[in-house]
């Protein structure tokens, strides 16, 4: 692998993305063509020369950060599969979108893992769900589905077990909606088909041996002589899927030499529900509450990323009103509050993982509860907020956070919303962060436990597409709110939290600093809310339609969520197939991609540290497995 650190010296003078595309088209005219489909952007690279051009993109043009790599099935619209890559510069700016196309029957696209290691899991996902083979990939196995699963579920001609119709709304619901349970009509088993050459009596699970093989464990286990001449073997330890430290059903297969980890392979997919296939069946509006269920700690941020992507698409059409200023201010406020919630949660459970058992986390949860109370009063739900809409919001702030007694033993609360918010932002949250720092930042045990553990170097962090506090803890000042600003962030005054060391402690410090920056942002939002009081949250004064027409095109909406870069790649078929349902809906999940460097971060540490390293990455399995 080339050393990406050398890249800047060779960089050409192509500051904008358009200039970069111009350079590629002039220098590699035979391989590169402009993607001139209606509403599409970027370039299409002939897959034969993809690897070569990708190196140019990284080294010569300086797009060192591969944010997203995903596949789209254009069945019925060219009948090809397409890999879509979004590469960015860590110095900021827009995306260089490049694509490679391949035949549906014999789908092969060269692997880019040798250029960006961050493509590793994403290519495995594309193989798993879309069936594209990546020659050159070191470990091309299914990642979300199990080995032995037949078919590739994101292909347009694949149908799920409880298949009813291609797209919602289903015709059976109205006007003749005689209710039935899906499992009664389609009991489990009817949809299972076996390939003809399989002998059910001799059915064997091959997935385990495949996992162990990827760790380099063949039949002959390597023999190690320790310093006293004892013959020792490497031991394989399975942590999870039911392990309290993994924050869900997540499994790590480690090989240990004594107590030192020599290699680690994350195994996931236990919570996989093919969110993206559901998303393609759904209408655009239907998807918003589904995004809540990805990273369920910060559902406001999930909503935001998705509505930004769809709003990008809608803005291509004629009938689109961007959200009002008040809407944007409310969105930013909600997202920043979720960021605080997310970081309190992340730090709390990371501390749990490394031994500060439950005292700190309960202190933080008290404040989180109050923020969730606020979400509940405004959006209607504590965690599954479903608050944002295309071009607006579900509703403005209520005048009072007020409850009405309904059930027996109900106790009533009644606060003025703005006063509640002001006291939270000016007093309680800063006080909690102060408490947190006093409790732990200088704690000697914590420092000894976390400094120098789980180090991710700056170059690796970029190359492995790490995002969020994981990236910024490694000294890369990359925050999408600054690198490619959205909403009203350009006018807000805040700093990017960065730490140089790249270890667990650095990530903890980044999270604490980010919470302080969030409070700073919230303090600037409050006067903006007062100034816009009475303004509608909808540009034309009335709520958006329930079935918005989304024009043909593609969009990649990304936000800086608590866990890192959350991106939504949405393709609208517009003219050629139902325009109120997305043709492709992909989630670039930070919890998923941040696990790519887990292996290199863990090498050489003790088993007990693995728990802490995983906690310091901060994953949520709802988002990892989708």
């Amino acid at each position: 692998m080339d050393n990406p650190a050398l890249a800047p010296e060779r960089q050409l003078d192509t500051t904008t993305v358009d200039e970069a595309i111009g350079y590629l088209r002039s220098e590699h005219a035979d391989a590169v063509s402009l993607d001139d489909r209606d509403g599409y952007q970027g370039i299409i690279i002939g897959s034969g020369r993809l690897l070569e051009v990708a190196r140019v993109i990284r080294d010569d043009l300086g797009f060192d950060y591969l944010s997203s790599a995903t596949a789209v099935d254009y069945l019925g619209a060219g009948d090809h599969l397409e890999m879509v890559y979004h590469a960015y510069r860590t110095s900021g700016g827009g995306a260089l979108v490049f694509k490679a196309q391949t035949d549906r029957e014999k789908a092969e696209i060269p692997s880019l893992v040798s250029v960006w290691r961050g493509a590793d899991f994403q290519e495995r996902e594309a193989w798993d769900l879309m069936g594209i083979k990546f020659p050159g990939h070191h470990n091309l196995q299914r990642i979300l589905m199990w080995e032995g699963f037949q078919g590739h579920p994101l292909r347009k001609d694949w149908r799920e077990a409880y298949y009813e119709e291609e797209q919602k709304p289903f015709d059976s619901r109205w006007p003749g909606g005689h209710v039935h349970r899906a499992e009664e009509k389609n009991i489990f088993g009817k949809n299972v088909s076996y390939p003809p050459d399989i002998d059910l009596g001799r059915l064997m699970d091959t997935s385990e041996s495949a996992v162990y093989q990827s760790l380099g464990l063949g039949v002959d286990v390597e023999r190690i002589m320790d310093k006293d001449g004892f013959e020792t073997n490497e031991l394989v330890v399975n942590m999870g899927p039911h392990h309290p430290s993994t924050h869900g059903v997540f499994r790590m297969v480690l090989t240990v030499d004594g107590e030192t980890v020599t290699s680690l392979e994350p195994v996931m997919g236990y919570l996989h529900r093919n969110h993206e296939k559901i998303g393609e069946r759904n209408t655009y509006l239907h998807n918003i509450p589904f995004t809540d269920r990805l990273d369920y700690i910060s559902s406001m941020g999930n909503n935001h990323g998705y509505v930004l992507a769809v709003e990008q698409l809608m803005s291509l059409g004629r009938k689109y009103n961007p959200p009002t200023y008040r809407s944007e201010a409310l969105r930013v406020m909600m997202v920043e509050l979720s960021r605080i919630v997310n970081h309190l949660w992340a730090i709390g459970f990371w501390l749990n993982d490394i031994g500060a058992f439950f005292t700190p986390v309960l202190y933080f949860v008290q404040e989180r509860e109050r923020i969730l109370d606020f979400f509940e009063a405004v959006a209607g739900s504590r965690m599954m907020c479903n608050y944002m809409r295309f071009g607006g919001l579900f509703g403005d702030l209520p005048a009072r956070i007020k409850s009405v007694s309904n059930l027996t033993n109900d106790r009533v609360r009644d606060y003025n919303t703005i006063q509640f918010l002001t006291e939270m932002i000016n007093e309680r949250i800063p006080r909690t962060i102060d408490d947190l720092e006093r409790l732990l930042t200088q704690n000697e045990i914590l420092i000894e436990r976390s400094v120098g553990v789980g180090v991710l170097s700056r170059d690796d962090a970029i190359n492995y597409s790490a995002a969020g506090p994981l990236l910024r803890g490694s000294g890369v000042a990359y925050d999408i709110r600054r690198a490619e600003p959205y909403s009203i962030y350009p006018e807000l005054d805040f700093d990017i939290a960065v730490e140089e060391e790249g270890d667990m402690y650095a990530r903890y410090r980044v999270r604490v600093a980010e919470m302080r920056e969030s409070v700073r942002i919230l303090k600037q939002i409050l006067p903006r809310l007062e100034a816009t009081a009475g303004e509608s949250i909808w540009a034309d004064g009335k709520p958006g339609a329930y079935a918005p027409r989304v024009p043909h095109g593609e969009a990649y909406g990304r936000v800086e969520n608590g866990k890192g870069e959350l991106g939504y790649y949405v393709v609208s078929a517009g003219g050629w197939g139902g325009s109120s349902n997305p043709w492709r809906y992909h989630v670039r999940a930070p919890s998923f991609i941040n696990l790519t460097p887990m292996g290199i971060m863990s090498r050489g540490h003790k088993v007990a540290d693995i728990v802490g390293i995983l906690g310091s990455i901060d994953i949520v399995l709802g988002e990892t497995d989708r």
Partner: protein
Amino acid sequence: MYGTGLAKGLMLTLRHFVESYVDDIRYGFRKYHHSTDNFGIRQGTQTKGVITVQYPDEKVAVPERFRFVPFLIVEDEDHPTRAGKDWCTSCGICAKVCPPQCIWIVRGNDPNTGRPVPEPEAFFIDIDICMNCGYCAEYCPFDAIKMDHDYELASYDRTTHHIHDKERLSKPNSYWRSIAPTRAYEEMLARGTWEHKDAAKEARRGAAASRASAPPPAAERPAAPQAQAAASEASASGETAAPAPAAEGATPWTEDEAKREERRRKALERKARRAAKRGS
């Protein structure tokens, strides 16, 4: 010096320990007693003590916007003309916006003419599938479906209890006004009447017809107590809500059959076109 960080942190836990008793000292043994109204303080922003709620001896009353499983609004039993009638017109928008598609509606038909009537014959919600997103209530053009506040729905058998039919779903309008007075008031402002949209339209038409012969009577009608409460709240904020006079014996669906038939024909055409498009 090694250990100062530790000691500082331990001082903080000590502070938290002491603060957790502040409320107990202030309220004595009456802290969790019904008559001691310290709940808002205990849960609020000024408290320093513990915020624990002793469920189920005490429950947090949920805010108005809270959403948990939809219900259908029917007119109160004491409504002069439409007692027990559905607000739902079975237009099907809730079934269309439902993300997990948990709403099933059988549109009503007039037994004599066979034409659809704006009233659901059957209405089912599978609450196992419902994801409590609130879209049905948000996009219902008739304010006929609302999200409930009763979150205690545990049952012993999901196969028999978790599909709510129309009978189980129906709750009186006064219930909605009691659990969400502010929102009911806002909806009234948007509709322009406390009555159902169609009933109000019918009433206006009836009033216009009677105006030709005689001056209309003053709008006087016994309102439900909750409605009065909401209305008094409304008048407190400087606005008055005049309930629309209800028309005698008016059934909204007997009006303008030709127009309705025309709409139905057009809708069927649209649907056929859509199906053809999808097939091609």
